[in-house]
């Protein structure tokens, strides 16, 4: 018990207390840097957030952005993992470099993709023009939708390798007998994947999805570097809105309220993902029982 004390103290003091405290802040009117005491306003900050014309569009954008990141990560991660699950020369080298993108911070990720997608000097426009895919350089960050897509691509890039490693680990636990039996029953590779492999690795798919979801919700540094939430508010996700409200407009209470609503949205989405991925298995178990 005594051995667990330091960890319990750290968790309560540095995680539990700040969480409660930030909830308390969200119920007050408090300006960053001012000496004036916080003023109790009840749930005014929350109604202000919910009534703000920025709220609904940025919530929608955040959810769509997260969905795109999760789906892209799952899809590419599964394809790459299936390829790596077979024996070939150089497989361990390929697996070795896979971890690299995942080790980058969001800032280095943003700088890397900011350079690649730089509209005047970036290598992507240069390559596309030289190969004749485009005749004119594309301004990737001029429209909100394109800019969000670029940022989603950057995120998927950084998450896919790790997802591949996790899914690969799960693939290696799929019993060969199951595949043999399915093959004897006449199932082709596609059906074997959907009815044998996928159900077996379901838990890993869930973990990957939730990891990608959390990361997508925290997409703050990318926006900080690449778009500043603009043009206009077209790339303003909840995380960015919360940050600017708290630390640029200095409205701590409203900022904390945004972060709390964001947490709520994320937990709901994670639960929904878990239900979506895990739910069918329970039903199929009942069917066989």
């Amino acid at each position, binding site marked *: 018990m005594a051995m667990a004390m330091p960890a319990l103290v750290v968790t309560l003091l540095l995680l539990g207390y700040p969480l409660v405290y*930030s909830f308390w802040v969200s119920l007050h009117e408090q300006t960053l840097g001012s000496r004036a005491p916080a003023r109790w306003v009840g749930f005014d900050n929350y109604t202000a957030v919910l009534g703000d014309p920025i709220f609904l569009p940025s919530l929608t954008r955040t959810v769509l952005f997260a969905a795109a990141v999760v789906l892209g990560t799952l899809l590419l991660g599964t394809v790459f993992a299936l390829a790596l699950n077979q024996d070939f020369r150089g497989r361990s080298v*390929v697996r070795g470099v896979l971890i690299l*993108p995942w080790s980058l*911070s969001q800032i280095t990720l943003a700088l890397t993709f900011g350079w690649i997608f730089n509209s005047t000097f970036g290598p992507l426009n240069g390559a596309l023009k030289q190969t004749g895919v485009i005749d004119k350089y594309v301004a990737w960050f001029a429209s909100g939708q394109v800019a969000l897509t670029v940022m989603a691509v950057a995120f998927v890039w950084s998450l896919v390798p790790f997802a591949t490693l996790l899914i690969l680990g799960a693939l290696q636990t799929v019993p060969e007998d199951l595949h043999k039996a399915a093959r004897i029953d006449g199932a082709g590779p596609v059906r074997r994947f959907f009815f044998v492999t996928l159900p077996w690795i379901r838990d890993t798919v869930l973990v990957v999805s939730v990891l990608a979801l959390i990361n997508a919700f925290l997409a703050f540094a990318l926006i900080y570097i690449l778009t500043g939430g603009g043009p206009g508010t077209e790339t303003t996700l909840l995380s960015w809105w919360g940050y600017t409200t708290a*630390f640029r407009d200095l409205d701590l209470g409203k900022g904390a309220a945004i972060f709390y609503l964001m947490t709520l949205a994320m937990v709901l989405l994670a639960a929904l993902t878990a239900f979506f991925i895990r739910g069918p298995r329970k039903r199929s178990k009942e069917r066989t029982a």
Partner: protein
Amino acid sequence: MAAGNRGRLARRVAARALRAGVVLALLAWVLLPFYFLLLVALTSRADSLRTPPRWIPAMDFGSFQKIFESAFSSAPPSNPSDLIVPGMQNSAVVAVCVAVLNIVIASTAGYAFARFRFPGSRAVPGLMLGSQLVPVFALVVPFYVMLHSMNLTDTRVGVVIAHLGFTVPFSVWMMRAYFNGIPVEVDRAAMIDGCTRWQVFARVVLPLARPGIISVGLFSFMVSWNDFLFALVLNSRTDAMLIQPAISGLYNVREQSFGIMAAGTLLAALPTMLLALVSQRFLVRGLTSGVGKV
């Protein structure tokens, strides 16, 4: 029958080609962005502004040179690239402290949760894993207010404290999973041989859990080194600035010093990249510890 064989052969060749294609795509996907960075980092400023861009590095180390020169001159920092080397030094101190404290706190607590029964010994680790769902954003405002009132903003100590809050719970979870994998019989045998509880832990079980300790250290070092939000909000003064905010100042499209930007990015990414390469099996195993048991 012969036609069937030929069909099968053709299918096998097609499957191999498909796999080779996917593997090549994977390699390109992973490595091309790094190549583009390296390319411009090793290109002189004038060359980097050419269209179409160069595709082969010019081996011009001017950008790296500029970053390191400013670090060893006594002049006060005047532009963003001067903050890279000091930022790396500050971040190294912070991240090492975070990693060491994580190892100490999480290995003791992980052992306690794995071996002893006490109120909450089952529920608490689950809660600690669940805390990973809390976005760090919800913690920024309170940490700023708390550390500001203790005069710990713009210090490295303050950031270490903040980073402990969102690394320790997961580290405890990882260490507990590791100790759970070590049979209790090991403890019993050592006790029969006359070890005290503490000796069992420090001399017998802890050495066996070395892979877990490495995972925890790596994970917390990387989280701390890569954190931008807390580093930005808590430490804004230039002498206390950490590496991520320091390189964030390099993105300035109008100044067009892309070489410096890329060189700084590579330098800032180097420690975590090397750690990840050297120890990826610890990382992957550590981060997925207990995944099957959730």
